[in-house]
C-alpha cells in the first residue's frame, strides 16, 4: 500500500513538467538503441541481483509510457539517442595516447587550476598510467572509513555487498516514475556512488567522488544514493572543478539522500562539464534529478552547488522536509557564459512541523547566456509553523544576457512564513573603474566583483572546494569583458 508520503512524492514528481520545470530543448523520439533486452543485458553484464533487474524493468516500462516532453523553444539540435550506448562499457578506450593530442586550450585551463599531470590525462581522456590506479591515499582512506562502519563504494559494488540496503532505499526518494529522465536513468543507470553512515557516526572525512574517479567510469547515467542513519553526519563532494570532456552529450543523473532522526547530510557540487564552444556546439546537456528527504525529526540536508559547465543545465536539488524540526538548505551559484543555458533552483517541501528551509541562489549571466532560477516552496497542511526564507540575486555582465526568476509558492497552512527576496544587478562601470584605478585589469576586476557577489554561497563549500571554485569562477570570467 502507498503511504501518504509516497503519494506526496509522486504527486510532486509528476508536476515537474507541468510547472515548467524544464529547460526548453527539443528531444528525439524513443531511442532506437533501447529495448527491454538492452535493460536485461545491462543487468546481466553487471551481475545484478534480481530485484535490481525488476527495478530497471519497471522503470523502463514506465518510461515507455511517458510522453516526450514538449519544449517550447529550440536552441539546440535534437539529442541523438541512436548515438547512445546503454551498456555500461567495461573500460573505456582511451581517446588519446598522449597529452600532446589534447586541445591546448583545455590543457591551459588545467594548468591554471593546478591539476596534477596524471589527473589531467584522466580528465582529458588520455590513457592513464597503471600507477595512478593504485594511489595509496585511496587505500588509507578506505581503511579509516571501514573502522567507523561507513560504507562508501561504487553503486555496483554496493549492489553486491549490501543488496538489502540498496533494496530498502533505492527509489525511495526519487521513484522511477518521477520524470522522463529519472525513469530513463532508473532503467539504464551505469554506476555511481553509495554512501551509508550508520547510527551515531560522524563520518571522519569529506567523501569525495574524486577518490574514486578512476575506480569506475560512472558514465552518463549516474546513480547516487546516500543514507545517514539516526544522528549520523556526512559531507559529500561531487564533481571536480576541471572541465571534463565527455563524448556523451546527454547526462541524466539521479541523486537520492535519506536523513533519519537528527542526521545531517551536506552535499556539495562543483559542476563543470564541457559547455561547448562559443556557439554552444558540443556542449553537454545535464539533466539531473536530485532530491533528499529529511525523514526523521531534527534532520538536516543542505545542497550547495557551483554550476559553471554544460551547455544546458536542468537541475533542482530539492528537500522533502518530512520530519518535525527538520532543516533544508540550498545554496547555489550558477554561471552561464556564451550560449549556455542554466535552469536551476530548488524545491522545499514542508510536511513536518516547525520545519525550516533556506534558499540562497546567485545567478551570474555573461555573454549571450540565459540563467534562470526556478524555485518552489510548498507548505503542506500538516506543516505547522514552517518557515522558509529565499533570496535570489542575479548579476548581469554585459547587455546581451538574461536572468529570470520564477518563484512558486504554495501555502496550505497559515501558521507558516515564507519570505522571498530577489535582486537583479549589473556590474557597474563605476565598480570596474574603481578596481582598475587600483591596478587590476578589467578581467580581474570583473572576476573579483563576481566572486564577491557569490561569496555567501562559496563560503558554504568545504575549504579546498571553495578555493578551487573561486579559481574556477575567475577562469569562467575570462573573455567576458571588452
Amino acid at each position, binding site marked *: 500500500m502507498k503511504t501518504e508520503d509516497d503519494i506526496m512524492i509522486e504527486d510532486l514528481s509528476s508536476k515537474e513538467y507541468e510547472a515548467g520545470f524544464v529547460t526548453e530543448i527539443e528531444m528525439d523520439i524513443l531511442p532506437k538503441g533501447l529495448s527491454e533486452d538492452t535493460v536485461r543485458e545491462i543487468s546481466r553484464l553487471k551481475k545484478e541481483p534480481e530485484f535490481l533487474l525488476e527495478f530497471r524493468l519497471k522503470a523502463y516500462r514506465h518510461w515507455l509510457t511517458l510522453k516526450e516532453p514538449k519544449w517550447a523553444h529550440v536552441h539546440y539540435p535534437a539529442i541523438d539517442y541512436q548515438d547512445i550506448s546503454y551498456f555500461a562499457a567495461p573500460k573505456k578506450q582511451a581517446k588519446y595516447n598522449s597529452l600532446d593530442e589534447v586541445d591546448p586550450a583545455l590543457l591551459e585551463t588545467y594548468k591554471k587550476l593546478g591539476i596534477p599531470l596524471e589527473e589531467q590525462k584522466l580528465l582529458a581522456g588520455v590513457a592513464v598510467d597503471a600507477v595512478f590506479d593504485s594511489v595509496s591515499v585511496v587505500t588509507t582512506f578506505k581503511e579509516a572509513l571501514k573502522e567507523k562502519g561507513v560504507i562508501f563504494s561504487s553503486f555496483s559494488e554496493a549492489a553486491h555487498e549490501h543488496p538489502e540496503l540498496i533494496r530498502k532505499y533505492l527509489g525511495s526518494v526519487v521513484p522511477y516514475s518521477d520524470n522522463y529522465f529519472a525513469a530513463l536513468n532508473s532503467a539504464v543507470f551505469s554506476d555511481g556512488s553509495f554512501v551509508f553512515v550508520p547510527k551515531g557516526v560522524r563520518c571522519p572525512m569529506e567523501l569525495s567522488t574524486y577518490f574514486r574517479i578512476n575506480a569506475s567510469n560512472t558514465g552518463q547515467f549516474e546513480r547516487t544514493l546516500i543514507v545517514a542513519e539516526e544522528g549520523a553526519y556526512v559531507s559529500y563532494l561531487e564533481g571536480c572543478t576541471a572541465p571534463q570532456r565527455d563524448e556523451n552529450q546527454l547526462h541524466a543523473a539521479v541523486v537520492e539522500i535519506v536523513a533519519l532522526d537528527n542526521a545531517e547530510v551536506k552535499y556539495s557540487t562543483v559542476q563543470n562539464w564541457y559547455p561547448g564552444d562559443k556557439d554552444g556546439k558540443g556542449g553537454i546537456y545535464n539533466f539531473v534529478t536530485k532530491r533528499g528527504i529529511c525523514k526523521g525529526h531534527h534532520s538536516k540536508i543542505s545542497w550547495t552547488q557551483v554550476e559553471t559547465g554544460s551547455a544546458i543545465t536542468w537541475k533542482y536539488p530539492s528537500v522533502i522536509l518530512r520530519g518535525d524540526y527538520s532543516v533544508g538548505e540550498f545554496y547555489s551559484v550558477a554561471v552561464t557564459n556564451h550560449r549556455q543555458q542554466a535552469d536551476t533552483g530548488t524545491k522545499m517541501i514542508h510536511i513536518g512541523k516547525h520545519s525550516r528551509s533556506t534558499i540562497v541562489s546567485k545567478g551570474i549571466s555573461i555573454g549571450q547566456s540565459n540563467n534562470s532560477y526556478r524555485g518552489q516552496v510548498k507548505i503542506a497542511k500538516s506543516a505547522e509553523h514552517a518557515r522558509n526564507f529565499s533570496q535570489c540575486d542575479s548579476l548581469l555582465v554585459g547587455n546581451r544576457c538574461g536572468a529570470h526568476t520564477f518563484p512558486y509558492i504554495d501555502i496550505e497552512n497559515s501558521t507558516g512564513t515564507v519570505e522571498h527576496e530577489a535582486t537583479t544587478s549589473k556590474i*557597474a*562601470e*563605476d*565598480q570596474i*573603474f*574603481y*578596481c*582598475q*584605478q*587600483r*591596478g*587590476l*585589469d*578589467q578581467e*580581474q*576586476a570583473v572576476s*573579483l*566583483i563576481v*566572486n*564577491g*557577489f*557569490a*561569496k*555567501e554561497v562559496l563560503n558554504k563549500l568545504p575549504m579546498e572546494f571553495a578555493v578551487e571554485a573561486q579559481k574556477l569562477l575567475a577562469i569562467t570570467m575570462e573573455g567576458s569583458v571588452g
Partner: protein
Amino acid sequence: MITIKNLKAKIGDKEILKGLNLEVKAGEVHAIMGPNGSGKSTLASVLAGREDYEVTEGEVEFLGKDLLEMEADERSREGLFLAFQYPVEIPGVSMTNFMKAAVKAHREHKGLPELTAKEFLALMKEKKQLVNMDTQLSQRSVNEGFSGGEKKKNEVYQMAMLEPKLAILDETDSGLDIDALRVVADGVNKLKTKDNATIVITHYQRLLDYIVPDFVHVLHNGRIVKSGGKELALELEEKGYDWLLN
C-alpha cells in the same frame, strides 16, 4: 612628474575641460580649488583614465610616458593614484582581498615577487596605523556600509598601501571630522618624499593648514584661471571666487 598641456575633454557633447595646463614636479604639493562644477573631478577622472570622458585635444606626459595612451589600470600600476571624491562599494569583496589583488598587480608590474601572507598582513597593519583605521574595516567589504569619513580614510589607506608616485586627492577632506582630518593629513604628509607628488583638490583652506601646498591653482570653467603660492588659498577663503572670475 606630470605635464598637462592644453587638455580638452568632453562628456557626451559637453566640453568640460577647455584647454588646461599644469605642471607638477617631484616633491611638490599642488592644491586645486574652484567653484562647484568647474571641472576638478573631471580633471582627476581624465587623468586616471575614466572612459566616459573623451579627450579631444592636448597631451599629458607622466614620468616620461604618454599618459593618455595607457589604460586606467596601467596608469595605476605606473604610479598614479586617485583618492575618489565618492568611493564606490563592492559588496562581498573584503578590503583584505581587494588590497591583496591590487598589491599583487603592482608588484608584478615592478617585477617583484608576491608578498607572503605574513608579509602582506604586516604591511596592512603598518599602513592602517598610518591613518588610524579600525582593524575591523579591512574585514568588511570594500566601502560597504562605511561612513562618509571612513570611506575617505580608506582611500588614504589604499594610497599608503600602493605608494604612488602621483596621488590625486579629490576632496578627501570633506566628511572628515576635525580629528580625522588631522590624522589623514598627517598620513599624507608621512607618505611624502622628494620623489613623489600630490595634487589636492579641496574647497577648504583648513586642509591646507595641514597639507601645505607649494602651489595653489584656481580652476574655473575648465581652465586654470589663477595660480599662486599657499597664500592664494587664504585670499580665496576671505574673498571667495567672484573677484577672480569677472
